[in-house]
């Protein structure tokens, strides 16, 4: 088993999957690698240029990925909202219109999810894909690395009321933005 693991790791490195995996995972701030806390804004969802969304004097964290569904953004929010300044923080979720109703999670979401959530939603396939992201989803990787970030979106009522309730119960100001196709 150890031998198999070592060979798989070697394969990961040789094929470039290891460095892509690292690039995806490093977007997730670590407890000890990121010392800042009490952010003003959390932006979750689609690859989006936030420069016009967030005032210069506000601190923010962004967790973005190509074609992230609204469902996945909600799962990420559940694990990440404590990065916000409690009682004074804002969450912005950005989503493409055609990803609003999909109840899917991608390999890009895995680094941001607690093992409890991964287990609950049976995301072993996505965990495995994350080890070989270039092999499994080359087009998505290209979007992730080279793709342009969207710049236009519209504020709309979130179609998932549970996100609205979730934020209200935790004193989080919530804004939902849609990228129209």
């Amino acid at each position: 088993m150890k031998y198999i693991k070592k060979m798989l790791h070697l394969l990961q490195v040789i094929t470039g999957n290891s460095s892509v995996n690292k690039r995806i995972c490093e977007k997730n701030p670590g407890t000890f690698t990121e010392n800042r806390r009490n952010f003003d804004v959390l932006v979750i969802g689609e690859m989006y240029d936030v420069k016009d969304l967030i005032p210069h004097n506000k601190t923010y964290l962004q967790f973005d990925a190509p074609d992230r569904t609204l469902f996945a953004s909600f799962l990420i929010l559940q694990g990440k909202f404590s990065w916000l300044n409690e009682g004074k923080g804002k969450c912005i979720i950005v989503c493409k219109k055609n990803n609003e109703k999909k109840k899917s999670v991608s390999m890009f979401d895995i680094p941001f999810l607690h093992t409890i959530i991964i287990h609950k939603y049976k995301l072993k396939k996505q965990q495995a894909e994350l080890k070989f992201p270039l092999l499994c989803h080359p087009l998505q990787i290209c979007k992730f690395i080279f793709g342009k970030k969207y710049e236009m979106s519209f504020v709309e009522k979130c179609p998932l009321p549970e996100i609205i309730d979730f934020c209200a119960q935790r004193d989080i100001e919530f804004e939902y933005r849609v990228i129209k196709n």
Partner: protein
Amino acid sequence: MNNIPWIFMGTFQNKDFDLLLNNVQIGIQNGVHGFDTAPSYKSEGVLGIVLKTLIEKGVVKREDLFISDKVDAWQMQENNGEMSQYVQDALHKMHLDYLDLVLVHWPLPEYLYATIRSLIELKEKGLIRNIGVCNVRIGHLKRILSNVGILPDFIQNEIHPLNNCDEVVNWCNEKNIKIMAYSPLCRMNKKLIESPILQELSIKYNKSIGQLILRWHLERSVMPVFMSHNPKRIVENTSIRDFSLDKNDIVRINAMNENYKIFLESKGCPGYEIH
């Protein structure tokens, strides 16, 4: 309950037998009889062997020790809150007949009440003596009371001058719930080291900033759970019972609060309820 420790030594990721043996022995020699572990710390087994060694050598008696362990989130989920097998495995691993305290590591709403009910059964059987919950707010404690019918005996939260948890500390003190503070020194965050208040008080009391903060915990009836691999630091951290802080100085340290937490609640407990 007359062997409640005044301070605990934590064993987070401390898997080196020789190092832990030395540190635990120094701790005991300096008045520490509370030791804290958890499955995720990977130190249960080695702590068990260390304590067994020291008991067999006559350095300490089992009845004078207070050992706290935890049940982790994955255990709560894996068995839907039924903890019996995990606790028995921990006892076996640690060469113990009972644990003085078992804490629920994270208050996952889906499994919390079933887990506590399971721990109550284990307490009735004598396998654990006290039940606790970590990382809680007053709301969690009230809901535990209304759903399970009891309040926990202990809580363990991240408490230090930058996150003083005033509300929950005062509430628990009123209800006679014992309070443990993990990361009691906030890993000596730069803001504490460079704090003019703490530097001034350090001179006033002729104690290090670490000692001042640990004493601050005691003044609030909070038991710090400190961790150190340095024997000199262990001695320093336990040399805090020979002075007390003026009320005004306690207030000044309290006022340093910024709600700054190292360990974010939603990270350990997705969907964490803040009210």
